[in-house]
């Protein structure tokens, strides 16, 4: 014992609980190595990383099949992770994956104005049926162009279903990459956006389509 016994540690229980305080340096090291080893062993079904962008911090989630979720800054990260756990697999862990690394680089280029379309494998499993068809039609709207909800519904094969098309766009799991921000109200006005109308305006402005 290097330290002399102390008499000022009473009451003992709170002092003992204090010993559980986290140690940042060691903790970060553990996290990093855990992600690497878990990924190498194939134990992670959904990886995610946070990426800084002009909109704020974007969450990028991916499976073996590709990018599965883009979470915009105004979305609740805890809710996104819970959704991924429930709908895909509870084996969700922070860490990199090829498709996420590619998406991050391409997002940087996009926000710098150097990229007009994304070339990343996509995992569409969080959307199905008509909604998926609407989103796949939306993916074809070119940079700098916009379309109406009715046009997108028509492209997805159900011209009358523009309200359902709106729901599909509002629940787009892959915003920005699948450019639902390019779909506007035909009567004018931006229309709703999962990431908030300000983010929508910012993206259209960037693309020179505002």
């Amino acid at each position, binding site marked *: *014992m*290097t*330290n*002399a*016994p*102390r*008499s000022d*540690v*009473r009451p*003992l*229980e709170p*002092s*003992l*609980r*204090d*010993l*559980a*305080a*986290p*140690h*940042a*340096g*060691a*903790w970060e*090291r*553990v*996290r990093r*190595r*855990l992600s690497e*080893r*878990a990924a190498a*062993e194939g*134990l*992670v079904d*959904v990886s*995610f990383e946070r990426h800084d962008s002009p909109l704020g911090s974007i969450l990028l989630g991916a499976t073996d099949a590709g990018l599965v979720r883009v979470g915009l800054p105004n979305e609740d990260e*805890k809710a996104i*992770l*819970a959704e*991924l*756990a*429930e709908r895909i*697999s*509870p*084996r*969700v*862990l*922070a860490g990199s994956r090829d498709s996420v690394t590619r998406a991050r680089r391409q997002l940087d280029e996009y926000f710098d104005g150097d990229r007009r379309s994304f070339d990343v494998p996509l995992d569409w499993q969080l959307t199905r049926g008509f909604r998926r068809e609407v989103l796949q039609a939306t993916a074809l709207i070119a940079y700098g162009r916009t379309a109406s909800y009715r046009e997108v519904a028509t492209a997805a094969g159900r011209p009358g279903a523009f309200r359902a098309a709106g729901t599909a766009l509002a629940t787009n799991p892959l915003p920005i990459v699948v450019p639902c921000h390019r779909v506007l109200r035909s009567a004018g006005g931006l229309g709703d956006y999962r990431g908030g109308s300000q983010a929508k305006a910012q993206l259209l402005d960037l693309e020179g389509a505002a």
Partner: protein
Amino acid sequence: MSTAATHLAGDRLPPFEQVVELHGPVLLRYCAAQVGSDRAEDCLQETLLSALRGYARVREVGAIRSWLFSIAANKAVDLHRGDGRLAPPVDDLAPLGASEEPTYRDDALWAQVRELPEKQRQAVTLRYLGDLTHSEIAEVMETSQEAARRSVFEGLERLRREVTA
């Protein structure tokens, strides 16, 4: 049916990420108490990897915490066995890793905890670092609830004697 039981049965597994963030820091402390700070990170690493391997089979969300401590307790034993050390070293008060941050808020108390006899150290750290109930401690230590309670009590008594000696 008790609310606790309904709670356990109906809940879905949280994302493993959340489990790591919620319980990891405390497990790291627990590992340090069992195997020493120089090997605490390895102990935790093995614990979390093992937990992730078995995570999909977890049935009771409410039991995740004591399940993690059970795995950590086993990994700590494995680490001791691995290099033939019978008891953890007592001269390991260097900070975890290479950081300059102070490792523990009260180094003297920490040293006393580390010098407790095996069972008392386990019981005291599970109770106060891990915040486990006596029945959870009994489960982790594979003993009776009464024995777990006694080990916590005896450990505390010993610490009290030493810090006031």
